[in-house]
Structures are given as structure tokens and as C-alpha cells.
């Protein structure tokens, strides 16, 4: 609880502005802790190629998906949003203005809008139209998708390696990947032998042409690959993904049970749900679950439809699930620590991709 120094209203810990008067509140601990991904990750060389392996989005749909309109994100919640009010060009007469001076009139409809609102709550006018245009043009995902697939030289597999990323974000040991098959697990020694969440034989890496491929050796906890931000990945029934410390399972469209003797099972209105997202809390147990309505859902620590207020590794707004042309997709929204999708049997590992196995994070360099 943060008590506003200006109006004494009590605000929840994650509020940046006072609910009562709009004054900026002191920040405490909402900045997400690093999830062992180095700060420089944005500069990592990453393959412009889109791999064709499931569960990636299908190429035929990718263009349309990537250019689908998306809300402008603030991926790092600690980044300050505009704190000072907009300039007031056409103020209402004093007697019409609400008490206090913490609102400013909407340039479109004139309604008094709290200064911390980005959009007018009466007419929906974008109060920062200028800055949002800049942001959307700079992050056009279409470029990423349409980048040509350049034929790369056969990699120097001698140099191919998995680099351990330590909790502080620095690089640790590197494990060489041979040109043949490299098995990794608790039984293969090194830092792997101490990780109780790795199966004795957990993952196998190999090269196919110039592409690194990882195969899940039917491990208990699986292998997770970080997905690219803003690139939709198709979700299938049973797809498991991870944001922050949370392991989530997508359950496909909820098919109605057959009804005996013509009687239908009664229940809450079914709003055409696309499926359900459940928190995995055990081998055969899930915790909270949320049906995904046709318009999709957003997931984040502070913002969205499904919130993880206690997980500091989840970004304020982290990812979204939505539907296009009858398929359901997961999109990372530029989160700090990334969205990881569990490999189903095997998957390509593009250069520079982060891979989670057991308790540890690696980067595939080759």
C-alpha cells in the first residue's frame, strides 16, 4: 500500500499514479528482476529466418499476423510513462472544471481527463498521438517477417556451443556442441549433474544442414525455447509455455460433452471460448485456469486480463493470446525476460536463441 503524499489516498503497490489525485507515486519494487538474460540481449545476432517447425506460426499467415494492429506496449514496466499533464490549450471555464487541477481537457471532445490517462475515457482520443506513431513505425514487425532467408555458410560446428547464462546475466561455462549428436542431461556431467530438474538424459542437440536442432529425450520437465517478440506462435491443445516463473498450459477449444437422453449439461454462458490457459502446479495438477474469449487475452504482472502480481520475472504486460483465421496464437509483447515455449518432440534452435533446460538458461551460439 502506498499512501499518496498529496491527498492521502491509499493506493495499491504497483500504481504509478494516485487513484485519488493523479499525483505520481514513489516507486518501490515493481521493477522486474533480471531473469538471467543479459541487458545486451537486444544486440544479439539473431537469425532473420523463420523456422518452419511447429509450433511456429505458419508462414502463410505470418505476414497478416505480424502486421495485425497491436496496442502500443510498454514492455519494461519500470520505464516512466508521461507524468506531466498535457498543455491546456482550451480550458473549460473554472466553474465547469472538476475539483482539483489533476485533469486536462481532451483535445477532441473537451472532457476532463485524468492526467495519467493515455486515452480519453469519454471519446477514446489518443492523447499522445504523436509519440505512438513514432513507436509503431519503429517497431514494424513486418520487416522481421519479410527479411530474406539468406543462405548461410555451413557453420563451424567446432565453435557451436551452449553458453550458460548465470543468474546475474553474465556468461558462464560454455558447452561445445559437436557436429554429430550431443546428449545433455543429469548423467552427462558438468554443471548438468547438479540440476535435479534435468532428467538423466534430457535433450539431444544435432545439426541439420546449418541449423541446430534440439530433441526432447522424453524428459520430465522439457526444453523451452524463447520466442521472438511480436512474432505469433501457434498454440495447440497441450502446448506448454513459460513466462517468468509461471508454467502455463494451453488447452484447446472446449468441446461440449455429449448429452444423454437429449438433456444438455447446464452451465454458465459459453462465449465461444478459444480454449483455456491453466497454471501447471504439478505433474497432474493445474491451479487457476482462465478460458480465452474470442477477442483473446493479455497476460502480465500488472496489466492484462490474467495477472501475476507476485512474479517479479513477469513484465508489466508480457504476452497475449489471440485468434486469427481459426488458429490460436501466443505473442510475446517485448517482455524483459521473454516468453518460452516448450519443445514438442524436437525443434530448430535459431542462432542466439535462449534455451531453458532444468533450472538453467543457455544461449545457443553457432
Amino acid at each position, binding site marked *: 500500500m502506498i499512501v499518496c503524499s498529496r491527498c492521502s489516498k491509499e493506493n495499491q503497490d504497483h500504481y504509478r499514479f494516485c487513484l485519488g489525485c493523479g499525483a505520481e507515486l514513489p516507486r518501490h519494487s515493481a521493477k522486474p528482476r533480471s531473469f538471467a538474460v543479459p541487458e545486451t540481449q537486444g544486440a544479439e545476432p539473431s537469425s532473420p529466418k523463420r523456422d518452419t517447425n511447429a509450433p511456429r506460426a505458419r508462414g502463410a499467415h505470418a505476414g497478416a499476423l505480424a502486421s495485425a494492429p497491436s496496442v502500443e506496449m510498454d514492455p519494461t514496466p519500470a520505464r516512466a510513462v508521461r507524468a506531466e499533464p498535457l498543455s491546456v490549450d482550451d480550458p473549460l471555464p473554472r466553474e465547469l472544471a472538476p475539483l482539483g487541477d489533476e485533469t486536462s481537457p481532451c483535445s477532441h471532445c473537451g472532457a476532463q481527463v485524468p492526467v495519467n490517462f493515455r486515452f480519453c475515457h469519454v471519446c477514446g482520443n489518443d492523447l499522445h498521438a504523436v509519440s505512438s506513431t513514432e513507436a509503431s513505425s519503429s517497431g514494424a514487425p513486418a520487416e522481421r517477417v519479410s527479411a530474406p532467408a539468406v543462405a548461410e555458410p555451413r557453420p563451424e560446428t567446432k565453435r557451436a556451443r551452449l553458453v550458460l547464462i548465470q543468474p546475474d546475466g553474465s556468461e558462464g561455462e560454455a558447452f561445445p556442441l559437436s557436429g554429430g549428436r550431443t546428449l545433455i542431461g543429469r548423467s552427462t556431467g558438468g554443471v548438468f549433474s547438479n540440476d535435479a530438474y534435468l532428467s538423466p538424459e534430457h535433450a539431444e542437440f544435432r545439426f541439420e544442414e546449418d541449423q541446430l536442432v534440439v530433441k526432447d529425450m522424453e524428459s520430465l520437465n522439457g526444453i523451452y525455447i524463447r520466442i521472438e517478440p511480436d512474432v505469433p506462435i501457434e498454440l495447440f491443445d497441450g502446448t506448454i509455455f513459460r513466462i517468468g516463473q509461471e508454467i502455463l498450459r494451453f488447452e484447446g477449444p472446449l468441446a461440449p*460433452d455429449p448429452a444423454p437422453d437429449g438433456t444438455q449439461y447446464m452451465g454458465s454462458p459459453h462465449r465461444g471460448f478459444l480454449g483455456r490457459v491453466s*497454471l501447471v502446479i504439478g505433474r*497432474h495438477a493445474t491451479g487457476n485456469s482462465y478460458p480465452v474469449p474470442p477477442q483473446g487475452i493479455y497476460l502480465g504482472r500488472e496489466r492484462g486480463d490474467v495477472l501475476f502480481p507476485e512474479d517479479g520475472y513477469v513484465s508489466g504486460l508480457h504476452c497475449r493470446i489471440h485468434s486469427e483465421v481459426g488458429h490460436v496464437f501466443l505473442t510475446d509483447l517485448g517482455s524483459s525476460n521473454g516468453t518460452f515455449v516448450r519443445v514438442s518432440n524436437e525443434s530448430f534452435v535459431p542462432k542466439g536463441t535462449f534455451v531453458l533446460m532444468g533450472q538453467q538458461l543457455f544461449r545457443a551460439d553457432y
Partner: protein
Amino acid sequence: MEQARNYVCTECASSVPSGHKFCGACGASVPLEAQTLETRFFGALQAPGKARLIVIRGDEAMGEGLSYLLQATEHVAGREADQIPFPSDNWLSPIHANFLYRGEKLFVRDEGSLNGVYIRTRRASPLQIGDQFICGQQLFRVDATPKDSSGPEADQTYFYSSPRRPSPFRITQILEGGMDGIVCCAHEQAVQIGREDCDLNFPDDVHMSPRHARVEMSGESLTLIDENSQNGTYVRIRGERELGHGDYLFLGRNLLRVEVTA
């Protein structure tokens, strides 16, 4: 001049008091309607101790405001029932429930229906794991927290799960068609249900109150508490339940009110 005070025999014009079957003077028989002075009701609805069911929200084919007088001993309701039919509501089993008198008391009995009979709670109602209840348009079930061993697998690998929080019970929404919808694990000892600012929020459900109901655990026992919601909270009955004046029932989509003439 004054009026004869009793029945007058049609044979001998003698006066015959009520209760006599024959004229004491001439032996002529007294007609049946003159033998007793029982007062009849203008309508059967006035009969004391007899209940009726008013359809508050109902079957499209049968209409709202319809009432059923429960004059017999047993009254079967269902999609194919003769006495209380709801032919167009496919949430009702063909034979769904029975309204029956036992002595002076009226009971409702679930006749093994698929979807059950729900009665409006009066403020608080005890719950057991597996019980179902309705708030607004939403149907819920109370579930136990699943047990999952935390030990390692045979090969000594531990399962990596999301961070777990202790939770004594959970509330699961049941969707039309029987599938599970939203699931909310109780954080502390209670789950609050309503339109906004609760643990389970249904902003689109216009029949739900802002704060509608909550399920609480104290010790080992669960209680469902209606928070003075406008439309009430309904609990599925087990077996049968005595009914009183003013009780509300859901049978499928049909909302019924029980009225008992005093």
C-alpha cells in the same frame, strides 16, 4: 313474518336441521347438498396448506407468470412430465423433480435429474466438496485442491512446477455443455464472487451483483454466503428438501417461486 331457519322437507314441510339424512317427521330423504353446511372456496387456489408454483422466468413455450396449483399428493416436473411440463427447456431431464406433500409439509425431490434442483439460500448455507451453486447466470462447483506428490520421479528428477501457494479449496466455473471454465484457488480461506473487484469477476453478467456471494472455509467446513445479492444464490439440493412459502427454485432455466396459502 320470518324465514325458516333450517332446511324444509319437500314432502311434509317440516324443519330438518343440518346433518340429518332423513326427515324426522315423514322419513323423506334429504338431498346431499342440504346435509352439510361446508363452506367452499371460490377457487381452489384458496385451499389452505396447498402450494402453488409461479414461473418467474420460464420455459418459452409455457410462458412466464404461469402457476401450477399443487393439489394432488405428488407433482412431477420435467421436460416430458404431464403435471408440470417444461417441454422446450433441454436443461431439464424428462422426469426432473417431484413436488410432494408429506402430511402438511411440501417437499421437492430431485428425481435423479442430470442438472439438479437449486434452491435459493437464505443468507448462509453449508457446502461440501463437489456441491454446485448458481450466482447470476454462472454455475460453480466447489473442488478440493488436487493432491500431487512433491517427491522426485524414479530417476530422481524433480518436477518443475509454477510457484505453488497453499490453497484449501477451489471454485470451478461449469460452462454450458459441462466443461470446466475459470478456476480460482482460494488464497486465504475465502473466494469472493461478483461483477468487479472480487476473486472471480463476471463484469458481463447483468444478473450478478457487484459483490454477490462468497465461499468461506473455517476449520474443515465450507459455507456459501449470499452477500445480499439482488437475485440470490442457489445451491443444488441433495435428494430432497422441504419447501416453504417464498422459496425460489431453479429447474434448468426455469425460476419458480413457491407460494403456500396460510
